[in-house]
């Protein structure tokens, strides 16, 4: 093992973390402001990826596809909020889970109805093709660096939005005391729709970015959704800062675990089994980390101050 390989894996971990952050940010924002558990968040990620792939195939431009993914996911989010989610805020979490699970099924079959069962093609734009040399002599895909940069920009943008704008002030107020900001004359229904659409747009953006290097297919959102839930539970549900740090922690832990554990196992068992055992333990690793963190800090690393 060389320094270059370790550096490359660290970058891979950060990139996975940044991608998870885009998903987790929307999820935690929606939970923080509206107290809603949204299982259909993965479907919005899928909507973004499909919108990007379809529009990119039609226009020939990934960038137009990327814009389309934001618009489509935000629109889908707003429609779902107005039609379904709005009726769930006062219900308990079990009702929310059931209803949003039904939404997953509807989104999946609806997408299949529109696009068919075979995965769609979505390629990286020419500008971001290929690899660049890293210090130490290895190469690293430009596109993954672009994902890291995009995620960092989104994190900064969200920070500015929430701490420096009127909308952000209302979001923070909504998190602290829903009844009070309603009583102060803020149109809470519109605020909820806007927040939901914002979270959906983030998921759609993640779907489009990741769709270019993964498979754009029905059901692609659910595996990511599970990781995103792990992230927000570790980070503290409702905290954007927690989501960012949780996502980076999960991304780096998962990547380093997959990389190092099989090597570590070689010290204890024959090489033929080391791969399988190391792989199995690596796939559990983030859940083990989550369990340890919850044992020490039951409400996550950065629980919101009020709740």
């Amino acid at each position: 093992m060389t320094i270059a390989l370790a550096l490359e894996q660290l970058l891979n971990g950060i990139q996975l973390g940044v991608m998870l952050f885009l998903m987790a940010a929307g999820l935690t924002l929606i939970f923080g402001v509206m107290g809603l558990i949204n299982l259909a968040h993965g479907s919005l990620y899928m909507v973004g990826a499909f919108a990007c792939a379809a529009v990119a195939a039609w226009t020939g431009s990934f960038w137009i596809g990327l814009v389309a993914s934001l618009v489509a996911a935000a629109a889908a989010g707003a429609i779902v909020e107005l039609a379904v989610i709005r009726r769930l805020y006062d219900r308990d979490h079990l009702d929310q889970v059931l209803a949003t699970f039904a939404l997953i099924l509807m989104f999946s079959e609806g997408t299949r109805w529109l696009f068919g069962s075979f995965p769609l093609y979505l390629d990286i734009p020419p500008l971001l093709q290929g690899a660049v040399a890293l210090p130490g002599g290895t190469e690293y895909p430009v596109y993954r660096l672009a994902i890291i940069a995009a995620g960092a920009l989104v994190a900064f943008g969200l920070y500015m939005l929430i701490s420096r704008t009127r909308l952000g002030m209302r979001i923070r107020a909504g998190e602290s005391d829903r009844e009070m900001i309603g009583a102060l004359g803020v149109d809470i229904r519109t605020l909820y729709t806007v927040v939901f659409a914002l979270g959906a747009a983030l998921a759609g953006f993640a779907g489009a970015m990741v769709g270019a290097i993964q498979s754009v297919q029905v059901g692609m959102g659910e595996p990511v959704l599970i990781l995103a839930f792990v992230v927000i539970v570790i980070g503290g549900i409702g905290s954007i800062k927690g989501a960012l740090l949780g996502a980076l922690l999960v991304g780096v832990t998962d990547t380093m675990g997959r990389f190092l554990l099989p090597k570590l196992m070689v010290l204890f068992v024959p090489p033929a089994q080391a791969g399988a055992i190391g792989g199995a333990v690596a796939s559990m690793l983030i859940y083990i980390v989550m369990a340890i963190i919850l044992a020490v800090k039951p409400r996550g690393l950065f629980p919101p101050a009020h709740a």
Partner: protein
Amino acid sequence: MKKMLAAATLALSLSASGLAFADPVKIGMITTLSGGGAGLGIDTRDGFMLAIKNAGNKDITVVTEDDAQKPELAVQIADKMIQSDKVDILTGIVWSNLLMAVAPSAVAQGKFYVSTNAAPAQLAGANCHKLYFNAAYQNDNLHEAVGEYANKGFKKMFILAPNYPAGKDSLTGFKRYYKGELAAEVYTQVGQTDYAAEIAQMRASGADGIFVFLPGGMGIAFMKQFAQSGVKIPVMGPGFSFSQDVLPAIGDAALGAKASGQWAPDFDNEASKKFLADFQKEYNRLPSIYAVQAYDAAQLILAAASKASVSDADAFAAELKKAEIQSPRGNFKFNTNQHPIQDIYLTEVIKKDGVLTNKTVEKIFTDHGDAYAKDCKL
């Protein structure tokens, strides 16, 4: 009563004019038509129904249901098909874990199971059954073929598969024939979508060849990411990794990849040409390997049904085992364990008329059976 008699006479005269079946046959098809794996199930269904449609026989009915790639759902559907639909033959399951949940109990209840894809080692060896047939292969076969191919010119292979039974069978099959050194043997999570960590290890491993078994979306993700990584090591895998259902989504990143398969669209025999033309005419796309396997499964059932009554299990099984069909694959017969003996080829991903597809490069195995047949006491 009169009407019924008339209808019966009509039916009799109709069936007498075509291929008369000794008894009507009812087939239950359980396959994956929703969720991420639906592409495979749809090709299975379409390939199967193409053969049924071509036969044009009124004595055969097929009921189809979606298992959503869930074992518990597949079991429920199988029970319903056996008990209330009264099917004679079950078929269609894509995934080995679903097959293991359904097939052993179906054959124990006296129903035939003709597999169109899934072929776990358990049912090929000591637990083989006279009512269980596999029209596709045995799970290890295509991996064995790549192992044999890798012996020519590859000294140090990096091998990778998902951490589940078929993934372990895959690497076992590869290693059964590959004689060179292994750079690493890596198991990834099932459904994993990001392979950056594994690709970095490939780069650092000093391997001169890479074998991956990543069916469906996993393979799409891997190939796209591998193409961007700047790693220039040749990639090979079993046919599923570069099958027609995933090639359009991988795009040009798949060009040049080597795979093993029992069939490719460029096969030069009459049955294959007819199958390809019929399939494209009916469904307006290229068939995958799953479609061929299902097409042959339907052909096998049709051939047996024209000779024996499905209610006479021994006679029907004997007819099935003769495998008197014109397979698009060319040579096809059943081994003692009722799994195929067939030729396996090396294929390469090419672009023909703007469409990505596989072309045949060379034959790897002739009349290849499987390693488990010797344990089968049929």
